[in-house]
Protein backbone atom coordinates (compact mmCIF):
# COMPACT_ATOMS: atom_id res chain seq x y z
CA UNK A 1 0.00 0.00 0.00
CA UNK A 2 1.10 3.54 -0.64
CA UNK A 3 1.64 6.16 2.04
CA UNK A 4 -1.55 7.84 0.84
CA UNK A 5 -3.61 4.67 1.27
CA UNK A 6 -2.06 3.93 4.64
CA UNK A 7 -2.70 7.45 5.93
CA UNK A 8 -6.32 7.27 4.87
CA UNK A 9 -6.59 3.90 6.56
CA UNK A 10 -4.94 5.29 9.69
CA UNK A 11 -7.31 8.24 9.75
CA UNK A 12 -10.16 5.80 10.37
CA UNK A 13 -8.58 4.71 13.64
CA UNK A 14 -5.62 6.84 14.53
CA UNK A 15 -4.78 4.99 17.72
CA UNK A 16 -4.49 1.59 16.05
CA UNK A 17 -0.91 0.44 16.66
CA UNK A 18 -0.93 -1.87 13.64
CA UNK A 19 -1.94 0.94 11.28
CA UNK A 20 0.68 3.26 12.75
CA UNK A 21 3.29 0.54 12.40
CA UNK A 22 2.32 -0.10 8.78
CA UNK A 23 2.71 3.58 7.94
CA UNK A 24 6.05 3.68 9.75
CA UNK A 25 7.28 0.74 7.69
CA UNK A 26 6.22 2.42 4.44
CA UNK A 27 8.13 5.57 5.35
CA UNK A 28 11.07 3.39 6.35
CA UNK A 29 11.07 1.85 2.86
CA UNK A 30 11.19 5.36 1.44
CA UNK A 31 14.14 6.14 3.75
CA UNK A 32 12.14 8.94 5.35
CA UNK A 33 13.41 8.09 8.77
CA UNK A 34 11.98 11.02 10.74
CA UNK A 35 8.48 10.25 9.49
CA UNK A 36 8.99 6.54 10.08
CA UNK A 37 10.27 7.00 13.62
CA UNK A 38 7.30 9.19 14.51
CA UNK A 39 4.77 6.57 13.49
CA UNK A 40 6.74 3.74 15.09
CA UNK A 41 6.69 5.72 18.33
CA UNK A 42 2.92 6.04 18.03
CA UNK A 43 2.67 2.30 17.38
CA UNK A 44 4.64 1.65 20.57
CA UNK A 45 2.74 4.20 22.65
CA UNK A 46 -0.65 2.87 21.59
CA UNK A 47 0.33 -0.80 21.45
CA UNK A 48 2.31 -1.52 24.57
CA UNK A 49 -0.64 -3.13 26.32
CA UNK A 50 -2.27 -4.96 23.43
CA UNK A 51 0.56 -5.58 20.96
CA UNK A 52 3.78 -6.30 22.87
CA UNK A 53 5.73 -7.78 19.96
CA UNK A 54 4.72 -4.92 17.70
CA UNK A 55 5.73 -2.46 20.42
CA UNK A 56 9.10 -4.13 20.90
CA UNK A 57 9.70 -4.14 17.15
CA UNK A 58 8.64 -0.50 16.88
CA UNK A 59 11.16 0.50 19.51
CA UNK A 60 13.91 -1.33 17.65
CA UNK A 61 12.90 0.28 14.39
CA UNK A 62 12.90 3.71 16.02
CA UNK A 63 16.46 3.07 17.13
CA UNK A 64 17.38 2.01 13.60
CA UNK A 65 15.80 5.15 12.16
CA UNK A 66 17.75 7.44 14.45
CA UNK A 67 20.90 5.44 13.90
CA UNK A 68 20.54 5.99 10.16
CA UNK A 69 20.14 9.72 10.73
CA UNK A 70 23.56 9.71 12.45
CA UNK A 71 24.66 11.68 15.49
CA UNK A 72 21.68 10.79 17.67
CA UNK A 73 23.55 8.34 19.88
CA UNK A 74 21.83 9.16 23.15
CA UNK A 75 18.42 8.64 21.58
CA UNK A 76 19.45 5.39 19.90
CA UNK A 77 20.76 4.01 23.19
CA UNK A 78 17.78 5.25 25.17
CA UNK A 79 15.34 3.65 22.76
CA UNK A 80 17.16 0.33 22.88
CA UNK A 81 17.09 0.49 26.65
CA UNK A 82 13.34 0.99 26.42
CA UNK A 83 13.16 -2.15 24.28
CA UNK A 84 15.26 -4.17 26.71
CA UNK A 85 13.21 -3.02 29.66
CA UNK A 86 10.04 -3.87 27.78
CA UNK A 87 11.12 -7.37 26.72
CA UNK A 88 14.31 -8.29 28.52
CA UNK A 89 14.09 -11.92 27.44
CA UNK A 90 14.63 -11.34 23.73
CA UNK A 91 18.01 -11.00 22.00
CA UNK A 92 17.40 -8.38 19.29
CA UNK A 93 17.73 -5.22 21.37
CA UNK A 94 20.91 -6.51 23.01
CA UNK A 95 22.31 -7.16 19.55
CA UNK A 96 21.50 -3.68 18.26
CA UNK A 97 22.96 -2.13 21.39
CA UNK A 98 26.12 -4.26 21.12
CA UNK A 99 26.49 -3.34 17.46
CA UNK A 100 25.95 0.32 18.26
CA UNK A 101 28.70 0.22 20.86
CA UNK A 102 30.97 -1.75 18.55
CA UNK A 103 30.55 0.85 15.80
CA UNK A 104 31.37 3.54 18.34
CA UNK A 105 34.44 1.64 19.54
CA UNK A 106 33.05 1.16 23.02
CA UNK A 107 34.39 -2.36 23.15
CA UNK A 108 33.62 -3.44 26.68
CA UNK A 109 30.00 -2.33 26.38
CA UNK A 110 29.74 -4.09 23.04
CA UNK A 111 31.14 -7.27 24.54
CA UNK A 112 28.88 -7.09 27.59
CA UNK A 113 25.68 -6.64 25.61
CA UNK A 114 26.70 -9.36 23.14
CA UNK A 115 27.14 -11.73 26.03
CA UNK A 116 23.86 -10.64 27.57
CA UNK A 117 22.02 -11.13 24.30
CA UNK A 118 23.47 -14.58 23.83
CA UNK A 119 21.77 -15.60 27.06
CA UNK A 120 18.43 -15.19 25.33
CA UNK A 121 19.05 -16.66 21.91
CA UNK A 122 17.99 -20.14 22.79
CA UNK A 123 14.70 -19.19 24.31
CA UNK A 124 12.06 -21.24 22.61
CA UNK A 125 9.46 -18.64 23.45
CA UNK A 126 10.86 -16.11 21.01
CA UNK A 127 8.14 -15.64 18.43
CA UNK A 128 9.07 -14.03 15.10
CA UNK A 129 8.88 -10.26 15.11
CA UNK A 130 6.41 -8.49 12.81
CA UNK A 131 9.22 -6.61 11.05
CA UNK A 132 12.88 -6.92 10.13
CA UNK A 133 15.28 -5.34 12.64
CA UNK A 134 18.63 -6.39 11.16
CA UNK A 135 18.98 -9.30 13.56
CA UNK A 136 19.51 -12.48 11.56
CA UNK A 137 20.02 -14.88 14.42
CA UNK A 138 22.43 -15.76 17.22
CA UNK A 139 25.46 -15.55 14.93
CA UNK A 140 25.02 -11.77 14.85
CA UNK A 141 25.62 -11.59 18.58
CA UNK A 142 28.55 -14.01 18.33
CA UNK A 143 30.06 -11.80 15.66
CA UNK A 144 29.76 -8.72 17.87
CA UNK A 145 31.28 -10.65 20.76
CA UNK A 146 34.16 -11.77 18.58
CA UNK A 147 34.90 -8.30 17.25
CA UNK A 148 34.69 -6.55 20.60
CA UNK A 149 36.54 -9.37 22.37
CA UNK A 150 39.64 -8.79 20.25
CA UNK A 151 39.80 -5.19 21.48
CA UNK A 152 39.56 -6.04 25.16
CA UNK A 153 42.37 -8.58 25.23
CA UNK A 154 40.49 -11.78 24.41
CA UNK A 155 42.40 -12.53 21.26
CA UNK A 156 42.27 -16.31 21.35
CA UNK A 157 38.61 -16.39 22.29
CA UNK A 158 37.89 -13.98 19.49
CA UNK A 159 39.80 -16.05 16.95
CA UNK A 160 38.03 -19.22 17.99
CA UNK A 161 34.69 -17.51 17.73
CA UNK A 162 35.34 -16.20 14.22
CA UNK A 163 36.44 -19.68 13.16
CA UNK A 164 33.37 -21.21 14.74
CA UNK A 165 31.16 -18.75 12.88
CA UNK A 166 32.79 -19.58 9.55
CA UNK A 167 32.72 -23.32 10.13
CA UNK A 168 29.35 -23.83 11.71
CA UNK A 169 26.99 -21.02 10.79
CA UNK A 170 25.22 -20.03 7.65
CA UNK A 171 25.59 -16.28 7.63
CA UNK A 172 24.65 -13.32 5.49
CA UNK A 173 27.48 -12.35 3.10
CA UNK A 174 28.50 -9.24 5.02
CA UNK A 175 29.07 -11.34 8.12
CA UNK A 176 31.12 -13.89 6.16
CA UNK A 177 33.31 -11.10 4.79
CA UNK A 178 33.54 -9.60 8.26
CA UNK A 179 34.76 -12.87 9.72
CA UNK A 180 37.27 -13.45 6.95
CA UNK A 181 38.66 -9.94 7.24
CA UNK A 182 38.97 -10.19 10.98
CA UNK A 183 40.68 -13.55 10.74
CA UNK A 184 43.49 -11.82 8.86
CA UNK A 185 44.32 -10.05 12.11
CA UNK A 186 45.39 -13.32 13.61
Amino acid at each position, binding site marked *: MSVESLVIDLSLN*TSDPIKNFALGEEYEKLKQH*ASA*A*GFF*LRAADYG*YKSQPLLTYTSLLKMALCWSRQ*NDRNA*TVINTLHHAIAFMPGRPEAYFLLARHYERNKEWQKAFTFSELGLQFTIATKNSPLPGYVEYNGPYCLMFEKAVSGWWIGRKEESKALFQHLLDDHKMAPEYVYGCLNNMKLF
Partner: protein
Amino acid sequence: MNPSIFIEDDGDILVNVRLVNYTLYISEQDERFFSPWGPLTYLHPEKDQRLTTTNYFCRLDKNLNLQNSTQVKMLELHKPIWEFHGLEDARVVRWNGDLYLIGVRRDTTTNGQGRMEYSKIELDKDKWTATEVSRVRVPAPVHEDTSYCEKNWMPILDNPYHFVKWTMPTEVIWANPDAPECKQVFTRETPSSPKDQRGGSQIVRWGDFYIAFTHEVALWRNYLNQKDSVYRHRLVVWDKDFNFKGLSKEFSFLDVKIEFCVGAAVYEDDLLISFSVADNAAFVMRTPRHVINEMITEALAYVG
Protein backbone atom coordinates in the same frame (compact mmCIF):
# COMPACT_ATOMS: atom_id res chain seq x y z
CA MET B 1 8.55 19.08 7.43
CA ASN B 2 5.86 21.66 7.15
CA PRO B 3 4.06 22.39 3.89
CA SER B 4 2.29 25.52 2.66
CA ILE B 5 0.12 25.15 -0.41
CA PHE B 6 -0.76 27.75 -3.00
CA ILE B 7 -2.64 27.62 -6.31
CA GLU B 8 -1.29 29.68 -9.19
CA ASP B 9 -3.54 31.46 -11.68
CA ASP B 10 -2.32 28.99 -14.34
CA GLY B 11 -3.56 26.12 -12.18
CA ASP B 12 -0.18 24.98 -10.90
CA ILE B 13 -0.34 23.58 -7.42
CA LEU B 14 2.69 24.86 -5.53
CA VAL B 15 3.84 23.72 -2.12
CA ASN B 16 6.68 25.08 -0.09
CA VAL B 17 7.93 22.35 2.20
CA ARG B 18 9.90 23.44 5.22
CA LEU B 19 12.57 20.83 5.89
CA VAL B 20 14.14 20.69 9.34
CA ASN B 21 17.27 18.97 10.58
CA TYR B 22 15.59 17.71 13.72
CA THR B 23 13.11 14.99 14.48
CA LEU B 24 10.35 15.95 16.83
CA TYR B 25 9.96 13.25 19.48
CA ILE B 26 6.51 13.18 21.05
CA SER B 27 5.33 10.52 23.44
CA GLU B 28 1.61 9.93 23.19
CA GLN B 29 -1.15 8.17 25.09
CA ASP B 30 0.32 7.11 28.46
CA GLU B 31 3.72 8.50 27.48
CA ARG B 32 5.36 5.17 28.15
CA PHE B 33 8.54 5.81 26.22
CA PHE B 34 10.24 9.10 27.01
CA SER B 35 13.21 10.38 25.05
CA PRO B 36 16.33 11.00 27.16
CA TRP B 37 15.00 14.54 27.60
CA GLY B 38 11.38 13.83 28.29
CA PRO B 39 8.14 13.26 26.41
CA LEU B 40 8.63 16.11 23.92
CA THR B 41 11.99 16.89 22.43
CA TYR B 42 13.60 18.30 19.33
CA LEU B 43 16.13 15.63 18.38
CA HIS B 44 18.80 17.62 16.61
CA PRO B 45 22.20 16.14 15.81
CA GLU B 46 24.08 15.83 19.08
CA LYS B 47 27.14 17.68 17.79
CA ASP B 48 25.07 20.38 16.15
CA GLN B 49 22.73 22.32 18.40
CA ARG B 50 21.22 24.30 15.55
CA LEU B 51 17.62 23.80 14.47
CA THR B 52 18.03 24.41 10.80
CA THR B 53 15.36 25.05 8.20
CA THR B 54 15.70 24.73 4.46
CA ASN B 55 12.81 25.28 2.09
CA TYR B 56 11.86 23.25 -0.96
CA PHE B 57 9.52 24.45 -3.64
CA CYS B 58 7.40 21.68 -5.10
CA ARG B 59 4.79 21.33 -7.81
CA LEU B 60 2.02 18.77 -7.51
CA ASP B 61 -0.13 17.34 -10.25
CA LYS B 62 -3.91 17.42 -10.08
CA ASN B 63 -3.86 14.15 -8.13
CA LEU B 64 -1.50 15.77 -5.63
CA ASN B 65 1.45 13.65 -6.68
CA LEU B 66 4.85 15.30 -6.51
CA GLN B 67 6.02 16.47 -9.94
CA ASN B 68 8.95 18.78 -9.21
CA SER B 69 10.95 19.87 -6.22
CA THR B 70 13.91 22.14 -5.70
CA GLN B 71 15.66 23.63 -2.74
CA VAL B 72 15.08 27.35 -2.54
CA LYS B 73 18.42 29.06 -2.99
CA MET B 74 18.38 31.75 -0.32
CA LEU B 75 20.42 34.92 -0.33
CA GLU B 76 23.36 34.83 2.05
CA LEU B 77 22.84 38.18 3.67
CA HIS B 78 24.27 37.47 7.09
CA LYS B 79 25.84 34.81 9.23
CA PRO B 80 23.20 33.23 11.48
CA ILE B 81 23.89 34.14 15.10
CA TRP B 82 21.20 32.18 16.91
CA GLU B 83 20.47 28.47 16.94
CA PHE B 84 17.27 28.59 14.87
CA HIS B 85 18.53 28.97 11.31
CA GLY B 86 16.57 29.89 8.26
CA LEU B 87 13.12 31.06 7.24
CA GLU B 88 10.57 29.11 9.28
CA ASP B 89 6.94 28.21 8.60
CA ALA B 90 6.79 30.22 5.41
CA ARG B 91 3.43 30.73 3.73
CA VAL B 92 3.32 30.97 -0.05
CA VAL B 93 1.55 33.90 -1.71
CA ARG B 94 1.66 35.64 -5.06
CA TRP B 95 0.73 39.29 -4.86
CA ASN B 96 0.73 41.64 -7.84
CA GLY B 97 2.69 39.08 -9.82
CA ASP B 98 5.43 38.54 -7.27
CA LEU B 99 5.87 35.21 -5.54
CA TYR B 100 6.76 35.33 -1.85
CA LEU B 101 7.65 33.06 0.99
CA ILE B 102 6.57 34.86 4.14
CA GLY B 103 7.75 33.38 7.39
CA VAL B 104 9.66 34.10 10.57
CA ARG B 105 13.43 34.37 10.86
CA ARG B 106 15.15 34.23 14.23
CA ASP B 107 18.81 34.01 13.36
CA THR B 108 19.70 37.69 13.03
CA THR B 109 20.07 38.50 16.72
CA THR B 110 21.86 36.76 19.54
CA ASN B 111 18.64 36.37 21.54
CA GLY B 112 16.51 34.81 18.80
CA GLN B 113 14.20 37.74 18.27
CA GLY B 114 11.72 36.72 15.59
CA ARG B 115 10.39 38.95 12.86
CA MET B 116 8.34 38.19 9.80
CA GLU B 117 10.24 38.37 6.54
CA TYR B 118 9.24 38.64 2.94
CA SER B 119 11.42 36.53 0.70
CA LYS B 120 10.67 37.29 -2.92
CA ILE B 121 11.18 34.17 -4.98
CA GLU B 122 12.04 33.85 -8.63
CA LEU B 123 10.59 30.54 -9.73
CA ASP B 124 11.72 29.17 -13.08
CA LYS B 125 8.99 26.72 -13.97
CA ASP B 126 10.87 25.27 -16.94
CA LYS B 127 14.12 24.45 -15.15
CA TRP B 128 12.28 24.21 -11.85
CA THR B 129 14.61 26.34 -9.81
CA ALA B 130 13.65 28.70 -7.00
CA THR B 131 15.85 31.59 -6.00
CA GLU B 132 15.36 34.25 -3.38
CA VAL B 133 15.97 37.58 -5.08
CA SER B 134 15.18 40.00 -2.28
CA ARG B 135 14.32 40.01 1.39
CA VAL B 136 12.61 42.45 3.71
CA ARG B 137 12.53 42.04 7.46
CA VAL B 138 9.22 43.40 8.65
CA PRO B 139 9.24 45.34 11.90
CA ALA B 140 6.44 44.83 14.35
CA PRO B 141 3.79 47.52 14.22
CA VAL B 142 4.82 50.55 16.21
CA HIS B 143 2.59 49.72 19.15
CA GLU B 144 4.26 46.31 19.53
CA ASP B 145 7.75 47.16 18.43
CA THR B 146 9.38 45.71 21.52
CA SER B 147 7.86 42.27 21.11
CA TYR B 148 10.24 39.35 21.22
CA CYS B 149 8.84 37.17 18.47
CA GLU B 150 6.49 37.99 15.63
CA LYS B 151 5.40 34.92 13.73
CA ASN B 152 2.50 33.12 12.11
CA TRP B 153 0.95 36.20 10.55
CA MET B 154 -1.70 34.94 8.15
CA PRO B 155 -1.53 36.50 4.69
CA ILE B 156 -4.84 37.49 3.13
CA LEU B 157 -4.58 35.91 -0.29
CA ASP B 158 -6.78 38.42 -2.14
CA ASN B 159 -5.56 41.53 -0.35
CA PRO B 160 -1.90 42.12 -1.14
CA TYR B 161 0.48 42.80 1.73
CA HIS B 162 -2.24 42.48 4.36
CA PHE B 163 -2.17 39.98 7.18
CA VAL B 164 -4.26 38.88 10.09
CA LYS B 165 -1.78 39.34 12.89
CA TRP B 166 -4.11 38.49 15.72
CA THR B 167 -7.30 36.49 15.35
CA MET B 168 -9.41 37.13 18.44
CA PRO B 169 -9.70 40.11 18.67
CA THR B 170 -8.87 40.49 15.01
CA GLU B 171 -6.03 42.75 14.00
CA VAL B 172 -5.23 43.33 10.33
CA ILE B 173 -1.92 44.89 9.45
CA TRP B 174 -0.20 45.99 6.27
CA ALA B 175 3.46 45.32 5.65
CA ASN B 176 5.51 46.89 2.91
CA PRO B 177 7.17 44.17 0.77
CA ASP B 178 9.90 46.54 -0.36
CA ALA B 179 10.93 48.31 2.83
CA PRO B 180 10.87 47.70 6.58
CA GLU B 181 7.51 49.26 7.23
CA CYS B 182 4.40 47.96 8.89
CA LYS B 183 1.23 49.49 10.25
CA GLN B 184 -2.01 48.48 11.82
CA VAL B 185 -4.95 48.83 9.43
CA PHE B 186 -7.81 48.03 11.76
CA THR B 187 -8.90 45.92 14.67
CA ARG B 188 -12.23 44.20 15.24
CA GLU B 189 -13.74 43.10 18.49
CA THR B 190 -14.60 39.41 18.78
CA PRO B 191 -16.09 37.20 21.43
CA SER B 192 -13.57 35.73 23.81
CA SER B 193 -11.75 32.66 22.56
CA PRO B 194 -11.41 29.45 24.56
CA LYS B 195 -7.66 29.59 23.97
CA ASP B 196 -5.38 32.01 22.22
CA GLN B 197 -5.88 31.46 18.48
CA ARG B 198 -2.51 31.51 16.79
CA GLY B 199 -1.86 31.92 13.10
CA GLY B 200 -2.06 29.03 10.71
CA SER B 201 -3.01 28.93 7.05
CA GLN B 202 -3.33 31.77 4.61
CA ILE B 203 -6.67 33.62 4.72
CA VAL B 204 -8.86 32.26 1.94
CA ARG B 205 -11.95 33.85 0.39
CA TRP B 206 -14.81 31.36 0.59
CA GLY B 207 -18.03 32.74 -0.87
CA ASP B 208 -19.11 35.63 1.30
CA PHE B 209 -16.62 34.70 4.00
CA TYR B 210 -12.95 34.75 4.72
CA ILE B 211 -11.75 31.58 6.41
CA ALA B 212 -8.49 30.34 7.90
CA PHE B 213 -7.21 27.53 10.05
CA THR B 214 -5.68 28.66 13.32
CA HIS B 215 -3.92 26.62 15.95
CA GLU B 216 -4.03 26.64 19.72
CA VAL B 217 -1.50 25.25 22.11
CA ALA B 218 -1.75 23.60 25.47
CA LEU B 219 1.71 23.74 26.97
CA TRP B 220 2.65 22.35 30.33
CA ARG B 221 5.46 20.77 32.30
CA ASN B 222 5.30 17.38 33.91
CA TYR B 223 6.40 16.56 37.45
CA LEU B 224 9.98 16.34 36.20
CA ASN B 225 9.67 19.88 34.82
CA GLN B 226 9.90 18.53 31.27
CA LYS B 227 7.82 20.30 28.65
CA ASP B 228 4.88 18.71 26.93
CA SER B 229 2.19 20.08 24.68
CA VAL B 230 -0.78 19.50 22.42
CA TYR B 231 -1.66 21.52 19.32
CA ARG B 232 -5.18 21.62 17.98
CA HIS B 233 -6.78 23.53 15.13
CA ARG B 234 -9.94 25.53 14.53
CA LEU B 235 -11.57 27.09 11.51
CA VAL B 236 -12.11 30.84 11.87
CA VAL B 237 -14.74 32.66 9.83
CA TRP B 238 -14.98 36.39 9.08
CA ASP B 239 -17.24 38.32 6.77
CA LYS B 240 -15.75 40.24 3.84
CA ASP B 241 -14.99 43.20 6.12
CA PHE B 242 -13.26 40.99 8.66
CA ASN B 243 -15.99 41.15 11.19
CA PHE B 244 -15.67 37.96 13.19
CA LYS B 245 -18.45 35.50 12.38
CA GLY B 246 -17.46 32.24 13.96
CA LEU B 247 -15.02 29.70 15.35
CA SER B 248 -15.29 25.96 14.89
CA LYS B 249 -14.74 23.37 17.54
CA GLU B 250 -11.15 22.25 17.98
CA PHE B 251 -10.04 19.42 15.75
CA SER B 252 -6.94 17.53 14.71
CA PHE B 253 -6.01 15.92 11.43
CA LEU B 254 -4.54 12.59 12.60
CA ASP B 255 -4.90 12.90 16.38
CA VAL B 256 -1.18 13.45 16.76
CA LYS B 257 -0.29 15.72 19.65
CA ILE B 258 1.52 18.24 17.51
CA GLU B 259 0.21 19.10 14.05
CA PHE B 260 0.51 22.40 12.27
CA CYS B 261 -1.41 23.80 9.30
CA VAL B 262 0.20 26.63 7.34
CA GLY B 263 -1.60 26.25 4.03
CA ALA B 264 -5.05 26.39 2.50
CA ALA B 265 -6.07 26.98 -1.11
CA VAL B 266 -9.26 26.70 -3.12
CA TYR B 267 -8.90 24.15 -5.92
CA GLU B 268 -11.65 23.04 -8.26
CA ASP B 269 -14.33 23.98 -5.75
CA ASP B 270 -12.66 22.04 -2.94
CA LEU B 271 -10.19 23.20 -0.34
CA LEU B 272 -6.64 21.87 -0.25
CA ILE B 273 -5.22 21.96 3.25
CA SER B 274 -1.53 21.41 3.90
CA PHE B 275 -0.30 20.43 7.33
CA SER B 276 2.54 18.73 9.13
CA VAL B 277 2.38 15.92 11.63
CA ALA B 278 4.92 16.34 14.39
CA ASP B 279 7.11 18.35 12.02
CA ASN B 280 8.10 14.93 10.68
CA ALA B 281 5.68 14.30 7.85
CA ALA B 282 3.94 16.62 5.41
CA PHE B 283 0.45 16.16 4.01
CA VAL B 284 -1.97 17.81 1.62
CA MET B 285 -5.59 16.95 2.18
CA ARG B 286 -8.30 17.61 -0.38
CA THR B 287 -11.42 18.57 1.50
CA PRO B 288 -14.81 18.66 -0.26
CA ARG B 289 -16.70 21.92 -0.31
CA HIS B 290 -19.59 20.51 1.67
CA VAL B 291 -17.27 19.54 4.52
CA ILE B 292 -15.89 23.07 4.72
CA ASN B 293 -19.41 24.44 4.56
CA GLU B 294 -20.42 22.18 7.43
CA MET B 295 -17.45 23.42 9.44
CA ILE B 296 -18.46 26.99 8.70
CA THR B 297 -22.01 26.29 9.83
CA GLU B 298 -20.62 24.87 13.04
CA ALA B 299 -18.35 27.88 13.46
CA LEU B 300 -21.18 30.34 12.93
CA ALA B 301 -22.89 28.90 15.99
CA TYR B 302 -19.99 30.00 18.18
CA VAL B 303 -21.07 32.35 20.92
CA GLY B 304 -17.86 32.70 22.87
